[in-house]
């Protein structure tokens, strides 16, 4: 397995899905089961490979890139094909391949109209390549390409299989299909951010020429950042801001979040799951992997802004949830709040905070993914998502209701379940932000974030009361509902188990991340904290 260790394993994980998708093109559309089995095989093999990476990963050296490959690619601009994983990206890579498998299991007998499993599965596989690739890319060009690859399949998923209803958009004359509006909004929003992000990348590329050769290589750039090369760069703040726009749209941070409720609500179930579980993490991962190590000084200047926006997102998202009438939209808005905690963790620029954000990402992926699965299954059965019409779900479908209650509890951050650690440690990190950041501001953010957890509990209990509890409304009397079927159970039970395991044994994630995060923060800030102490004015 030498070739695997030397990096081609990672390439296999990245490109196997897209190769599988190409092969699936050759299978006739009518042979649905063949397409399904083939795609499932590809997804399972990819997941298996990522497990091999996880178990072969040397936790003692989690701060180093392992399974690394670095070969020249576009030599004209010095872009290399450089991939590798470290402790930060490993949990996210495994999560990504894992959720893809679960999404395939779930969609085994859930097909949205117009029914076309082949096309849908091919899009999912392409999405898999994009997601996996983003998490292992160590070259800005490569990162950018994978980052953009995920847009296309998601655009088609929402646009073709999304919500069929019509909607009046203020300012436009005619009604238009919700799914088209949502997909276009999603696409344009993300593209708008990425354009700025690319500008930022190019600025870094040209600037790095002053320090021994222009490069797109992320570790090299991070080394420049650690050495303080970019510290006196006049436009560093602007460059960070450009990257911030690109990543913040994806996270999404308030006020750039408005694409998210529409896209999540309109997307088909599996699309929402992948969007919530993986795609949102690309943004926050970008902050940790690129923006902060490369431009630590600028990150410090921007940190208060990020913290304030995160806190606004937490409070705002929770309050907006309280006003929702649509289950799926409520879950979508809850993502704004939860990702606010993730970003608050990042904004503290400390070991604690960034660890919090990674475990927060993993937990949010598991929990909100499961919530979207459940919302999809409920919509499948009731054909409505209006909470006023639902009620007594626990009586009609005890298992579905029980799992919904469990997931809601996990989502509101109940200690002992995965969601707790992300929230708690983000607050913990905000107590003691990096030296030089305003303690008063971050502690204020901590208090506001803690109040946000109350609001989170409020809307989750509100949702449970409306949907799960009480007597079923008369509309459903006499209906036969089939409780959770075995495909759904197969897709959900692993998520439930993981939520409990991470809740009681967060070391599953921390074990991989902590050394890498400590190394990253030390590199970024230890050097300049002695060199430019008077500048930072702590």
């Amino acid at each position, binding site marked *: 397995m030498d070739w695997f260790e030397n990096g081609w394993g990672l390439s296999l994980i990245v490109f196997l899905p897209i190769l599988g998708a190409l092969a699936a093109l050759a299978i006739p559309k009518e042979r649905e089961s063949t397409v399904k089995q083939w795609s499932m095989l590809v997804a399972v093999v990819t997941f298996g490979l990522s497990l091999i990476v996880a178990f072969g990963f040397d936790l003692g050296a989690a701060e180093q890139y392992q399974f690394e490959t670095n070969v020249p690619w576009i030599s004209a601009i010095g872009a290399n094909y450089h991939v590798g994983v470290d402790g930060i990206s490993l949990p996210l890579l495994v999560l990504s391949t894992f959720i893809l498998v679960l999404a395939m299991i779930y969609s085994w007998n859930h097909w949205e109209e117009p029914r076309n499993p082949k096309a849908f599965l091919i899009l999912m596989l392409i999405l898999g390549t994009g997601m996996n690739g983003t998490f292992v890319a160590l070259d800005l060009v490569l990162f950018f390409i994978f980052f953009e690859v995920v847009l296309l399949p998601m655009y088609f998923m929402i646009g073709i299989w999304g919500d069929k209803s019509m909607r009046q958009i203020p300012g436009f004359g005619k009604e238009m299909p919700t799914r088209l509006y949502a997909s276009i909004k999603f696409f344009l929003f993300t593209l708008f951010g990425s354009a700025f992000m690319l500008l930022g990348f190019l600025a870094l590329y040209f600037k790095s020429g002053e320090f021994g050769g222009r490069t797109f290589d992320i570790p090299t750039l991070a080394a420049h950042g650690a050495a303080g090369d970019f510290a006196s760069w006049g436009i560093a703040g602007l460059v960070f801001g450009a990257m911030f726009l690109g990543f913040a749209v994806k996270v999404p941070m308030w006020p750039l979040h408005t694409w998210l409720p529409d896209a999540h609500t309109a997307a088909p179930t599996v699309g929402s799951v992948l969007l919530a579980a993986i795609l949102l993490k690309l943004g926050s991962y970008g902050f940790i992997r690129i923006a902060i190590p490369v431009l630590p000084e600028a990150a410090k200047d921007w940190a208060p802004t990020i913290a304030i926006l995160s806190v606004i997102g937490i409070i705002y998202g929770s309050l907006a949830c309280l006003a929702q009438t649509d289950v799926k939209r409520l879950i979508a808005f809850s993502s704004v709040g939860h990702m606010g905690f993730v970003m608050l963790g990042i904004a503290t620029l400390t070991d604690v905070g960034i660890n919090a954000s990674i475990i927060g990402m993993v937990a949010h992926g598991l929990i909100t993914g499961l919530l979207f699965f459940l919302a999809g299954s409920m919509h499948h059965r009731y054909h409505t998502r209006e909470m006023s019409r639902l009620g007594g779900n626990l009586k009609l479908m005890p298992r579905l209701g029980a799992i919904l209650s469990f997931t809601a509890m996990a989502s509101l951050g109940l200690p002992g379940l995965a969601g707790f650690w992300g929230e708690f440690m983000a607050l913990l990190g905000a107590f003691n932000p990096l030296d030089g950041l*305003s*303690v*008063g*501001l971050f*502690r*204020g953010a901590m*208090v506001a974030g803690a109040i946000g957890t109350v609001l989170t509990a409020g809307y989750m209990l509100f949702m449970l009361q409306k949907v799960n509890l009480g007597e079923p409304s008369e509309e459903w009397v006499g209906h036969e509902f089939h409780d959770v079927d075995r495909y759904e159970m197969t897709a959900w039970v692993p998520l439930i188990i993981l939520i409990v395991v991470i809740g009681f044994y967060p070391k599953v994630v921390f074990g991989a991340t902590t050394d890498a995060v400590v190394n990253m923060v030390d590199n970024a800030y230890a050097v300049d904290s002695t060199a430019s102490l008077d500048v930072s004015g702590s």
Partner: protein
Amino acid sequence: MTFDVWLSDPVNWVYLAIGAAVLLCGVRVVTSQNVVHAALFLVGALAGSAALMLLLSAEFVAWTVVLVYIGAVIVLFLFGIMITRAPVVRDVGLDNKKARPVAAVVALATFAVLTYTSLLAFGNTEVARVGDPTPTETLAEGLLGRFVLPFEVVGFILLAALIGGITLARRDLSPAEEEERGAV
């Protein structure tokens, strides 16, 4: 003084909390469509400002506000509300709706002018008296010493108001009613 330095003093968190409560109550006093609610929110606003006075170390005045305003004046109001038979439920006709925009503009302008002038006048001046309550003795000496005449005058005004109130509000009974009452 920068905002974060200001914020790092926990007393200011207390201030923020109380101030927010006061303003919230104040808003509800003038917007509530239920007269009893409005009166009760006035209690909240007054209690909050009493708390602010405590922060400013004016203990005696703060407790006076609590006793006189919350204790006595509000009761008077509730009586007034009951006697005038104001509906104690939501009453949509409580506000002059057409006046709202004008009133809002005037109120905002008031706020803007007042804030501007006080910013102009005081800037970042710190509150001198923190945790050093004014002794009641000082107030007593002031009231019964230098200000004894105004004090008496005010007392007289209060008396006059009392008598005037009784005179005004007393119902002159018709002879028939007078008789009726006498019989009972």
